[in-house]
């Protein structure tokens, strides 16, 4: 239990005052000044004793894994329990991330569960290795700090927003897929009708109600359901043009596009230009894992070339459509995606709205859709 004592600015002012009174007392004929000095010093002593005792008697629950979204209040709750009979107040709970919460008063023998007040505006995974309990109770002369080791993290998801999902391709039958095929199937959710029983049909497909009418045995038929595949390829390159903010915009855009695609029942795979980071999400799956992946994604200073990109594309499903979320583009890249597009690959390109790539974009194939992302929206030309 590491305890540290600091003097506040108010405390320093009063120390300065004490020094002045002491100088005054050197020439004064009365010793009564020492009583006044004693009272002020007594206040320091009380500040020290009450604060130390109060902070030592508080137990704080560990701040484990807390999930939140950019700009929103976290759902993390930290419990405080005061075992002493005396109240303590003016407590702030700090960490390497800053002040997490503030407690005005914690009465003696009481327990409080307080939500983390700090709002995180940028996505990321913030590790909390220690917590610092601070208090200036009751006079504000001394600030006592108590360090508590903690093993926790705050995962700040990128803020996702509604947007149009990129075109998917490589549709395959899948139960629950919202795209309907022309064929009928004996299983699925979308009931299409009945047909005559043919040999080999499993008994469980028999539509008993229709069969009971005496016109023969009928089996159920369902509309065939398809879901497509989408690969979101993110640009993690660190460049002066791609500042941290724009990168965060791109992550939000990736999350929002992936979420929209998942809502439509597509398989989504998120990767980067070098194919180093890869995350797969099945249709209708819980998006928390994907958001956590996006929260932890970092820019890289690794060198990049088209060869890396080619390798990354090869690893992706052949039929999946590609959504490039780029921070900046150049001619080789345009030429490469034009080539890919010519091979029949469905491609969508997302660029920062602030970017000015008119010369490059003029060379872009007209069949490649392009969009621009901002802080919290995606728009077309």
């Amino acid at each position, binding site marked *: 239990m590491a305890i540290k004592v600091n003097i506040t600015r108010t405390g320093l002012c009063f120390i300065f005052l004490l020094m002045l009174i002491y100088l005054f007392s*050197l020439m004064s*004929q*009365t010793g009564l000044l020492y009583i006044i000095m004693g*009272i002020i010093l*007594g*206040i320091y*002593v009380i500040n020290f004793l009450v604060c130390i005792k109060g902070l030592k008697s508080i137990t704080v629950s560990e701040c484990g894994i807390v999930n939140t979204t950019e700009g929103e209040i976290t759902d993390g709750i930290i419990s405080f329990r005061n075992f002493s009979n005396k109240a303590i107040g003016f407590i702030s709970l700090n960490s390497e991330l800053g002040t997490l919460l503030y407690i*005005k008063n914690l009465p003696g023998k009481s327990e409080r569960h307080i939500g983390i007040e700090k709002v995180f505006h940028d996505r990321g995974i913030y590790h909390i290795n220690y917590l610092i309990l601070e208090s200036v109770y*009751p006079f504000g002369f001394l600030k006592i700090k108590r360090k508590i080791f903690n093993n926790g993290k705050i995962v700040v998801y990128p803020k996702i927003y509604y947007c149009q999902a990129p075109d998917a391709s490589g549709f395959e039958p899948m139960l629950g897929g919202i795209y309907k095929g022309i064929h009928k199937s004996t299983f699925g959710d979308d009931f299409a009708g009945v047909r005559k029983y043919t040999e080999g049909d499993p008994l469980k497909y028999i539509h008993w109600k229709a069969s009971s009418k005496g016109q023969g045995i009928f089996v159920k038929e369902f509309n065939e359901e398809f879901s497509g595949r989408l690969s979101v390829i993110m640009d993690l390159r660190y460049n002066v043009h791609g500042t941290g903010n724009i990168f965060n915009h791109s992550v939000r855009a990736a999350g929002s596009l992936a979420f929209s695609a998942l809502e439509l029942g597509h398989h989504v795979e998120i990767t980067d230009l070098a194919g180093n980071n890869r995350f797969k999400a099945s249709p209708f799956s819980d998006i928390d894992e994907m958001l956590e992946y996006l929260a932890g994604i970092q820019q890289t200073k690794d060198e990049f070339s088209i060869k890396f990109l080619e390798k990354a594309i090869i690893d992706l499903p052949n039929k999946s459509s590609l959504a490039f979320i780029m921070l900046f583009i150049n001619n080789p890249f345009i030429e490469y995606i034009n080539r890919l597009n010519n091979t029949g690959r469905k491609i969508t390109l997302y660029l920062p709205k602030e970017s000015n790539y008119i010369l490059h974009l003029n060379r872009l194939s007209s069949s490649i859709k392009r969009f621009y992302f901002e802080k919290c929206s995606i728009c077309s030309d």
Partner: protein
Amino acid sequence: MQRLTKPENLFILVGLICQAFTWDNHQHYTFLIVFFLWIICCLLHSSRKIISDGVQFIIILSALTFFYSFTGVNIFGKCISLGNGLVLLQLIRLTYQLNYRERILSIIIAITQIVIGTQVILGYSFVLVISATLILLPKSLYQIQIENIEPNTKDSIGKFEFKNRKFEFTVIFLFSLLFFIIFPRINIESNTNLYSPFSRYRDSLYLNKPELNTSLASLNENALKDNDIVLQIHMDGTKTKYLEIMSLDKYENGLWTISASGYLKKRNLADRFNVEKKNYRKIDIKNDKFKSKFLPVDGNVQAIEGNFFDNPYFTRNGDIIVNNNIKRKNKSYEYWTSYKFNSLSSNDYRRYTKHGDTSQRIITFIDSVTKNSKTNNDKAYAITAYLKNNFKYELGVPKLNEIYPVEDFLFNVRKGHCERFASALAYLLRTINVPAKVTVGYLVREYNQFGEYYNVRTQDLHAWTEAYFKDKGWVIFDATPVSERIRTNEDIGILKKISDYFEYIWYSKVINLSFGDQVNLLKSINDIISWFINIFAKGLSFIYYLFTLMIFILIIYLFKHKFIRKLLKLRFINKKRSIVYAEHFYGDMLKELEKQKIIKPISATPFELLDILKKNNFIHYNEAKAITIIFCYIKYGNGYMNEEKIKIIQQNLNTIKINKKKYDNE
């Protein structure tokens, strides 16, 4: 009303009142003015500033400049003046809502004003100031902190009141006391005027003028009404009743004065280490008005030391004259006297017997009074006794005849105050060729047995006669008749003496606690500790055991809850928590039984459940019984849960749970 009772505002008021003390602490209207201004400013309080920052700044700067430039002649004076300027700032700031920094500044200014006030508040009223500071300062700081966090708080966190913060207030009080006692005093002596031109001390009254003449003139009764303590004397050796200020050796035209040669230095005073130490006196001057160049002493002074003068010397009249009577507080001096006396030179003999013409009537008077006396010594006693027994003490008697004052006094008026008797006796002694002088000084009568000191008050001023005899030296003759006005030691009540003693303690041990006193105090503590160590070393077992027992009882008393519990590891849990624990464990047992398909009927008592278990031949009936008994003992009896019981319950519960696992496996 809330504004008026706010601790912060009250503390500011204390500061303002302390500052007002520097104006004039005898005139209460200054306090009333400050008080009413404070009330008005508190009532004018509004959320917005009445006067803008710029105007405020100009007003304050002007006030500070004025007070700094035109008042106060030294650092103290300047401080007081600045404090006066800050009064204006404090009052202005009461009228609007301050932010955190401004509020802290107001508190600092109030402390500064209290500090300035302590330079003039030396009496018991300072106890009130300290009490107010002790209570209001922590409360104000706490309130400021709360309102800094929650501006419009309505006691959501609670007030810093004495009833719920006894520990805090006690610690602050004890710490201030400890700091006051043990913090080493360093005092830089300064010959500075403490008071500003506006001070009440600007017109000092010289009670004892060096050029004082005593005559046979009238003395107003009001002159001796002042009852202030002037001197406080500690005596070692022979006690004296007469403390001499000056001797008047010259008689001319009915007036007694000090002759030119009376001022002359007779000898230097020796170093204190080189004198034969017979009688020792330490005199504290308790009244600022005492400014005489003549120091009150008794006997033949050999050495003298003091903290307010330079170059003391012994005059030919036997007085002590000092130079540079510094104006400062806590004046004191000490001196050593011897029984030796010096014989008079022929010049001095002539000087002390010079008396002018004497009328036949006076000679006849002396002859008639001293007809039975043979020696001069006897004659002196006879005349003294005659005056004392046949004359009357009275103040305010009309003036005597200016040409024949002695005759008028002896044969017509026959009454008067001490100076008349002393003058007349000295004159009469000189007529029979006995060297004599009139001595003015204090009559030491008031002894305080609690503090073992003598008090000398203004009204103890007295005059008597000293006569020289070859074989005895200077002898005191006091011809003044006994009067009701003259108090005796017995006249002073015990309560008065106790209150005087407290006053003595307050001034000498509180206000003027010196480094020497601190050292003595630490020595005393050291002595007490040494005494105890010696007692233990000598093996005085009774005191040792008594002391140990007392310490043990004290420890038990102080730590009766926590310490003993920890020591014995019993850790009794209080009743409420015990029941919670018991219910918790019993509930656990019921859950286990439920899992084993033994459900307690709702109406069944714990012991009925035991009967059910017994009927069902429950394997761990004994364990369940043990838990049930402890549960009932705690919940329905007066039992408490302790670690031992918790251990038993947990063991039994574990046995039941293990049994359940075996049952499941089977």
